[in-house]
């Protein structure tokens, strides 16, 4: 039950994090990519909503696992979507 509830809560948050990381304006600017329309507020709500639901349910163990997995996923996505040096240089040259 703990596993199921933790993973069910983490999945939407991780997807929201992936979206936020992919569309992040500062990251895209640094990579020389065009920034799309900002829908960050919705993604942030999707990110945090499962945590709020777990608090409302009093599922503290699942809340800690959700927070830990989301933090680790955020770090991994940032690592995976790192801006390569060449793109950074070309962005500077393009300006």
């Amino acid at each position, binding site marked *: 039950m*703990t596993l199921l509830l933790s993973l069910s809560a983490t999945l939407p948050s991780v997807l929201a994090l992936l979206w936020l990381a992919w569309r992040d304006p*500062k990251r895209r600017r640094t990579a020389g990519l065009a920034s799309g329309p900002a829908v960050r507020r919705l993604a942030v709500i999707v990110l945090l909503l499962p945590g709020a639901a777990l608090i409302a349910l009093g599922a503290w163990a699942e809340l800690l696992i959700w927070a*830990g997995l989301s933090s680790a996923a*955020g*770090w991994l996505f940032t690592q995976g979507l790192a801006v390569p040096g060449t793109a950074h240089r070309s962005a500077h040259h393009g300006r």
Partner: protein
Amino acid sequence: MIRLPQRETKSLLAIHGWSAVCLGLLLYVVIVTGVACVFADEIGDWASPLPEAPTARFPSGIDAPLRTFAESVDPSQRDAFFAFPRAGGRMYAQFHHDARDASGKMVEHDIAVDIDPATMQIENRREGDDDALAAADRTNAISNFFINLHVRLHVPEPWGLLLTGVLGLAMMVAAVSGFLIHRHLIRELFTLRRRRDLLSARDAHVVAGTWNLLFSFLLAFTGSFFSFASSFGVPVMAMVAFNGDQEKALETMVGNPPASDPRPATLANLDAMLADARTRTHSEIYYIGIEHWGRADARVSVTMLPPEGELLGTTYVYDGPSGGFQYEKPALGRVPSVGGALYGLMAPLHFGNFAGVLSKGVWFALGFAAAYVALSGMRLWTTRRAAEPGWRPLTRAVAGIGHGLPLALTAAAAACFIAQIADAELEPVMMRSFLAVLALALAACWMVRDAERVSRALLLLNGVLMLALPALRLLAGGPGWGAMFATGQFAVPAIDSALIIAGLTCLLAVWRATAAERGARQALRFEQVRG
């Protein structure tokens, strides 16, 4: 402000920076060993499995061997007793007794045994203080070594605990000050520039630190609490409120002060008490503690694991001679309180063991990130100052300990298996191997100018050694995967697999770093030729 000549100011700055980095390196040791300690139980099961998996944490019939053990201990030395399963499910049982020596100094005398849960045979009896017991422990040696390094850096009590407590405070200060000084923390949450320069190193440190901020603070706070509570908190409280009587202070705090009755009385059947505790909650027994075994005022505390989805387990108290249930005990005192609940939360929040392997896996990942933040922070700090002669040794020390420490820990585990094959004492061999590898890593970083190359060599060696550990385990008489799968003991294949994956990851990282360096060198040569 005191006005100082420029030379003195520079010297003071160097002392300030040196002390901060030295403290940071010790903190890194505590964090890295803490990451390994998340799986201390599983490491014990992996290193010393039994041929048969126990049927339960406290199997039926455990009363008889525990009673036999108790009868072999002098009644005057049965003040406190505790037992819990570890290292393949062996029951670790220990009597603890405090006494004053001829000079009036308080000394502890402990007696411990292991009990095989399948045969109920008593094995490995040892006596002495905590350190003597740890040194004579052959079934949980690797876990003990890591835990001792994490908890007190192998420094004698209370100094080791005070030191790790201070390091926990330093980690909290680093987390809070890092949060305050990085102004664009949220804006740069997803921005990581991957180049081979200081900017990328700064990005990598800030990004990892930001994502790990909350947990770093949590782990540092709870870790400091554990270090200071016994080494500083209880003695100070005892001095202030209990006229220096630490035992009285603890009894009042724990809320279990028995009315003293030293008349002899036989302890009731433990199996019956454990069976009763199981009917009261939907979880298994975590550990048992008994005060004054064999006396009329004996009390038995049975602490349960947290039930599914909860953070805290319950403790049930039984009357020793009658075996009757007495009351459910909060973590502190006799009635539930906010303080008691917060105190109870310290352990699950620090150990991350409240939901089995799932929560341990999360804590492992977050601990790994914390270690990365500590190391990347020190590397950033020292690399920025590498041109100054006073900072060069520290730059090399950071490189040496950064990759040398994980290698030294793997070497200590390998040394344990080799000592088992040679039938030598385990703890001294592990300690010597650990220190020798760490010293060699530091010496290599000191002598070779290219610290990056030494770091890669250390990572390569660690990868090779991790790949060799499963083989060494087998050579030391450990069982194969088939036998472990057949008996449902999955810690052995799981940790063997994790070591193989980690070893291959190290080798891959070295290969990629070497290829990137070669590429950069070729590009530079091409630029020179073209220019």
